[in-house]
């Protein structure tokens, strides 16, 4: 009798523990495998199998729940740990329509998750107008500035015609990215050059998010056409350029028509836009040819058949009634 009792006691002691261990073991194994596979993804759960798999799972669920509720009440959308960050580089300069352009651009960007806006002013100092605007939008931003040297020997206001507008600003942003992110970090990012007067659809940002090296797509209203587009063959590879203006350029594409994976930018730290001696229309090629070949390009926007970005230009407002002395209060910011 006591023997049976003893056995019963032992069984009762051991049973719960074996059950517990089996169940934990099972659920611990699955995420272990997942972590091993997902070495490229940004996950903060790289503490490994030591963490409870249950915590991992419920955290994921919680993230989704949080995103659902917070998106409703906050702009921009909450930061996601999984989506690659889109670093948007925008050169800008002071002129009457600047605040308007940046305002409507910000209104678009506020819809894009994981967007980091790198705004580079063509100025000696960062202006209060842009500083205030950036702060008020609530966007994740970096505010830089570099002044394109003016050649005063030329008439009036013209800048050195040999340096295309925006080049020094874009290069500064590239340098900032290289100084801020080292190639060993697993931070997934995409770099896009967005001028402040173009129009961008929200779909465009989701198309570029999956860029492995350099992705391309059509751009409307450039090159004197309804749109310019890369030529894509049946195998889904880019083999040429559908443009009228110099289609034999290495990359006959507008600044708004491509995006580059951040890893590639970091991997080739010498690649910059060429400052001087660049023929009209060759600026984009001056950077891209150092990074990628034609066959490496990834066509997006339904194999380059949809227009997701428009190269709009804003008219210069007629300020004739301001007269010589200025009619309106100069303290009111426009």
């Amino acid at each position, binding site marked *: 009798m006591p023997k049976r009792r003893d056995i019963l006691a032992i069984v009762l002691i051991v049973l719960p523990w074996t*059950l517990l261990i089996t169940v934990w073991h099972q659920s611990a194994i699955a995420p272990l495998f997942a972590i091993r596979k997902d070495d490229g993804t940004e996950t903060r759960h790289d503490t490994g199998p030591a963490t409870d798999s249950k915590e991992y799972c419920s955290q994921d669920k919680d993230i989704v729940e949080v995103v659902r509720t917070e998106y409703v009440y906050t702009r921009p959308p909450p930061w996601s740990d999984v*989506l690659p960050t889109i670093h948007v580089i925008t050169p800008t300069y002071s002129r009457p329509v600047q605040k*308007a352009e940046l305002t409507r651009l910000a209104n678009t960007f506020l819809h894009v998750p994981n967007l980091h806006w790198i705004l580079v002013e063509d100025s000696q100092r960062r202006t209060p107008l842009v500083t205030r605007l950036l702060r008020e939008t609530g966007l994740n931003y970096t505010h830089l500035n570099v002044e394109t040297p003016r050649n005063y020997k030329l008439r009036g206001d013209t800048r050195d015609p040999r340096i295309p507008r925006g080049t020094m600003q874009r290069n500064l942003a590239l340098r900032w990215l290289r100084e801020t992110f080292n190639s060993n970090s697993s931070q997934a990012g995409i770099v896009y050059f967005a001028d402040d007067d173009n129009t961008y659809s929200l779909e465009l940002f989701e198309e570029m998010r999956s860029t492995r090296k350099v992705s391309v797509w059509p751009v*409307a209203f450039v090159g004197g056409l309804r749109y310019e587009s890369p030529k894509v063959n049946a195998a889904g590879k880019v083999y040429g350029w559908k443009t009228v203006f110099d289609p034999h350029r290495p990359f006959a594409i507008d600044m708004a028509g491509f995006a580059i994976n951040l890893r590639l930018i970091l991997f080739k730290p010498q690649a910059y836009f060429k400052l001087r001696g660049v023929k009209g229309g060759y600026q984009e090629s001056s950077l891209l040819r150092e990074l990628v070949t034609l066959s490496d390009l990834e066509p997006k926007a339904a194999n380059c058949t949809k227009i997701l970005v428009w190269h709009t230009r804003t008219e210069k407002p007629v300020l004739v009634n301001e007269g010589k002395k200025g009619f*309106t209060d100069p303290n009111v910011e426009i």
Partner: protein
Amino acid sequence: MRMRLKLKTVFVLYFTVSLLGLIYALMQLGQRCDCRGHDMSKDQQISQLRGELQKLQEHIKTELNKKTDVPKIYVITPTYARLVQKAELTRLSHTFLHVPQLHWIVVEDAPQPTLLVTDFLAASGLTYTHLHKLTPKDRKLQEGDPSWLKPRGAEQRNEGLRWLREMGAAAEGKEAAALEEAVVYFADDDNTYSLQLFEEMRYTYRVSVWPVGLVGGMKFERPVVEDGKVVRFHTGWRPNRPFPIDMAGFAVSLRLILTSPQARFDGDAQMGFLESSFLQHLVTMDELEPKADLCTKVLVWHTRTEKPKMKREDALQKQGLGSDPDVEV
């Protein structure tokens, strides 16, 4: 005996604790999420997230409009087909998507609704009404006419007003009460609007006004406010008009529109008098409500978009080699 008792107690305690622990753990585990998700490749994850994004965007729209305690803003936008139309409407919609309780009334200058605008509005995520009204030929600007020659959009705005009045007459109960608080704003598709502007106009009793940037040949035009009332208008061009204010510079309460059925835009009005032709039926200058910090801040800009150069496109089309017309631009 004592020893045995101790052991027995220990054992019982141990058994209870471990059983409770197991039950607790099983309950926690019972709520496990689908761990299969972690085996997905990066691409699958991204497309799954895209799906999430879409769902979230749908959710914002419904959530934003659930804020039913704020007055609704009806925005009337006349639009017409030209190259930059889709681009203009796209970036405009991005601004409107941030504004709660906004109802967009898009009126095309066309004999029937176009596919471009129909598809665009359906995908926009906004609450909208799609109307159309063709401007009669004699009132329409011809190619090469300067933009100021004939007033534009009058018929379309009147069509928007007609729809609002129709809706107002048909509404009853809670709906009708909500309409009492609503505001109507005329927003052209090429201007630029800050988000703050909509919050300024939301509480309008009759007609509220504010400065407009980059208009009238000046950096901005504005009503001049003294003692909280508008006394005159600061503008560089024809300041003696009854209301020398741009279309983007005022909003009207829906109540006032519904109680003044004769108020409409006069398509034959002289240059610059379109706004006055409408406002003079509704309000006097001292009744105007100044917004935007007593009309000292610029929250809307009268931007205009350049017409894109199509030299090469035109040349190609002459040769029959124009770009694919099926690709919507």
